[in-house]
């Protein structure tokens, strides 16, 4: 009975959404002509190269035009890590041992990971350093580095990320992101303003503070995701 009721409900919702999206043509040009700024996207496309000197428009939007979103974004990840730590927290007396229950990984896995790990971390760092030129950026690069650490965590029992250093990197990265914002305020303009010169568009050193913010975000995301994975891997199944 319940299944029938739910399926009817879903059909109603589906019909409701379908006929709103019938009026929105797929592939239709909603930006209008780019020069006149009546839509926000038109403004971004026509002014990013000139005003922010960044080749990747999305990086300019995420970091500079809508900088507060990314700040909120980084706090969401930081709070998820803290929340996770407090939900799965085992007090000192409950903890038997904190090392991970690693199933013995095969020889192929261990040697393969030893080769792959530096390559993945290098790729991740490349992605978030070139965030303002090529697709990718702080979030994507950080996640790739975290997958690298994940491989190491799974295959080597002895490999342990040094908790203290991780906390230092995480806090310093977050503080420098907010610090850049405060520095914008201190130097008389608004919060998170891109005050330095923006250089030539497609060169590595271009876009003023934007690449620096994205590198900082990259470090923070990498450390936080590794932290989440580390906490989750440390839980012992009951059986």
């Amino acid at each position, binding site marked *: 009975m319940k299944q029938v009721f739910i399926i009817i409900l879903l059909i109603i919702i*589906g019909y409701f*959404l379908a006929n709103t999206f019938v009026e929105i043509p*797929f*592939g239709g040009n*909603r930006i209008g002509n780019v020069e006149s700024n009546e839509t926000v996207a038109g403004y971004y496309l026509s002014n990013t190269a000139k005003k922010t000197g960044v080749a*990747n428009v999305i990086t300019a939007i995420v970091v500079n035009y809508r900088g507060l979103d990314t700040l909120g974004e980084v706090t*969401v990840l930081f709070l*998820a890590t803290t929340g996770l730590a407090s939900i*799965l927290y085992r007090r000192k007396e409950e903890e038997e041992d904190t090392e991970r229950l690693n199933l013995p990984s095969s020889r192929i896995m261990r040697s393969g990971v030893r080769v792959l790990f530096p390559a993945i971390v290098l790729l991740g760092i490349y992605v978030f350093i070139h965030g303002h030129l090529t697709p990718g950026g702080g979030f994507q690069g950080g996640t790739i580095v975290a997958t690298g650490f994940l491989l190491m965590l799974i295959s080597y029992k002895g490999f342990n990320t040094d908790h203290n250093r991780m906390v230092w990197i995480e806090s310093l990265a977050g503080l420098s992101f907010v610090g850049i914002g405060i520095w914008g305020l201190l130097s008389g303009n608004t919060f998170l303003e891109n005050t330095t010169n923006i250089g030539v568009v497609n060169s590595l050193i271009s876009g003023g503070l934007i690449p620096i913010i994205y590198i900082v975000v990259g470090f923070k995301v990498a450390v936080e995701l590794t932290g989440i994975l580390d906490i989750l891997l440390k839980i012992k199944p009951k059986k």
Partner: protein
Amino acid sequence: MQEQFNEIFIKYHEIITIGVYGTAIALMLIGLYAILMKKNLVKIVIGLTILDAGIHLLFVGIGYIQNGTAPIFSPGYENSADRMVDPVPQALVLTAIIIGFAVTAVALSLVIRLYKHHNTAKIDQIKHLKW
């Protein structure tokens, strides 16, 4: 090549629209079905991720413009601003994916703790709190 693409795009316009919007809405409905129907907690969280995946696909779908290019001024494309796809939905989806991941991580940690207390991962056996 370009005009050939255009008239194909116009000829099959309905199929393409159904192709993108239809799949996105269908994904959302599948996700909703799983959340409402399934008993197992992990299945419910899977439903939540699929619901989010549907919305992210819809977000990028509305941003697409017919034969537009990616909004990146790489060396060869300095002045092709008017042929670019809408960048704003993509910037929003970037944030939405990360938030979706954070919510899933917290949800799964709660599932682990619930299993530790109740020794079952079925939602109808965890009805300890009543109205």
